[in-house]
């Protein structure tokens, strides 16, 4: 029987590219996890990003943020992703995510919460799922900070397609079902082009959300209804979209967001978010407020 280093913990993948300092954002995300979930944190990264982490961040901050650092050398798929920073600015960068299913192998924990580095944990809500009855949990619905549904392609893989599950937050244990789920995810990732043809989802970007959605569909007997997987009690993943911006932060939790209208992008409204876990998809916006938030942690 495998012995794990810790019973419960949180993992982040962070591979830097030419545009985004993922490890820097991972430190911020880890700080929020430590404060609100009080769990050990593991960073999964590569040699290059780890060197940059050591060069750019004080040793004390790294040690405070991460209890474990796992270095991987997986070959990544070519995956050029277009990012937005407000509706008016965009840039492209390689997105290294093709080994995400290997978390089952990399995690040092018996029960793991895998979070994307842009998922900011401002409450202790996720803790209850460590004691829940589901071996794997993910969100199967999302909404914007304006309380609107995401666009059609982020709800279904195509117009008459299967429901999309989000791989932003994945809870799993070490049960047989979990192992089966990650093996199925790996199979879909390895045969992505075939499943793209079969499930008719958009091409170009390799999305782990599509991989997990197909894995869920296969394991549910090719039906929409399934019982093994939890969906965080049907709550929604709250997305601060790539076209939204963080205007200011008061302390750690109270953030003011400029939220754009999906159909008429010039129509912004202000949204104040407090005590709400959020998925901040605009990473440059997150990067801009990181220094302030890190200071707030020291206050």
């Amino acid at each position, binding site marked *: 029987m495998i012995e794990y280093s810790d019973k419960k913990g949180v993992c982040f993948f962070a591979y830097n590219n030419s545009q985004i300092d993922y490890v820097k954002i991972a430190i911020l995300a880890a700080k929020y996890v430590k404060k609100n979930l009080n769990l050990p944190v593991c960073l999964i990264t590569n040699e290059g990003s780890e060197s940059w982490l050591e060069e750019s961040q004080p040793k004390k901050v790294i040690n405070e943020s991460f209890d474990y650092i796992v270095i991987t050398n997986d070959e990544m798929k070519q995956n050029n992703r277009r990012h937005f920073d407000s509706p008016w600015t965009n840039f492209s960068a390689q997105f290294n995510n093709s080994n995400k299913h290997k978390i089952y192998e990399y995690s040092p924990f018996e029960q793991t919460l895998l979070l994307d580095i842009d998922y900011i944990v401002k*409450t202790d*809500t996720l803790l*209850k*799922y460590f*004691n*829940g*009855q589901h071996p794997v949990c993910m969100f199967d619905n999302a909404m914007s*900070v*304006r*309380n609107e549904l995401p666009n059609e392609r982020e709800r279904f893989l195509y117009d008459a397609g299967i429901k999309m599950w989000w791989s932003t937050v994945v809870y799993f244990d070490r049960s047989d079902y979990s192992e089966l789920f990650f093996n199925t995810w790996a199979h879909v990732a390895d045969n992505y082009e075939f499943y793209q043809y079969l499930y008719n989802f958009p091409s170009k970007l390799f999305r782990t959300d599509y991989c997990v959605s197909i894995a869920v569909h296969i394991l549910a007997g090719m039906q929409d209804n399934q019982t093994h997987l939890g969906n965080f*009690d049907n*709550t*929604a993943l*709250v997305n601060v979209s790539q076209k939204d911006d963080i205007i200011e932060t*008061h302390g750690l939790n109270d953030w*003011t967001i400029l939220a754009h209208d999906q159909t008429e992008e010039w129509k912004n*409204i*202000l*949204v*104040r*978010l407090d*005590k*709400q876990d959020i998925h901040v998809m605009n990473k440059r916006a997150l990067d801009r407020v990181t220094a302030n938030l890190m200071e707030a942690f020291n206050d």
Partner: protein
Amino acid sequence: MDERLEQALEFSNYALTINNQKRNIRNRVAQLQIVHYVGGVFLADHTTISFVKTLIDMKHTKFIIIDNKNNPITVKNIKELLEKLIEAYISATTEFDIENEKLKKARNIKKIMDW
């Protein structure tokens, strides 16, 4: 711009913003009302609390309750479940009340944002 229209649009923007804030609070409250207990998921609302209290009043100690996911859950310590439901309900409604009071006083967007 016609001043009347300018004022109407300003109010329209305020209404949109405050309604969105209210929805955010309700979402948060709904999350706080979810109680996980012995593998079941229960909503700490009036109906569940009253039902569990009725079972206690009728001297039941062990009971099978259908949870929010339509699964039968054997509850051996029904008083403990009631305590957890009440705790979640109070925590949710207290936060609801605090946030709601703040919003009631905010008569324009600057006040909502604390600017």
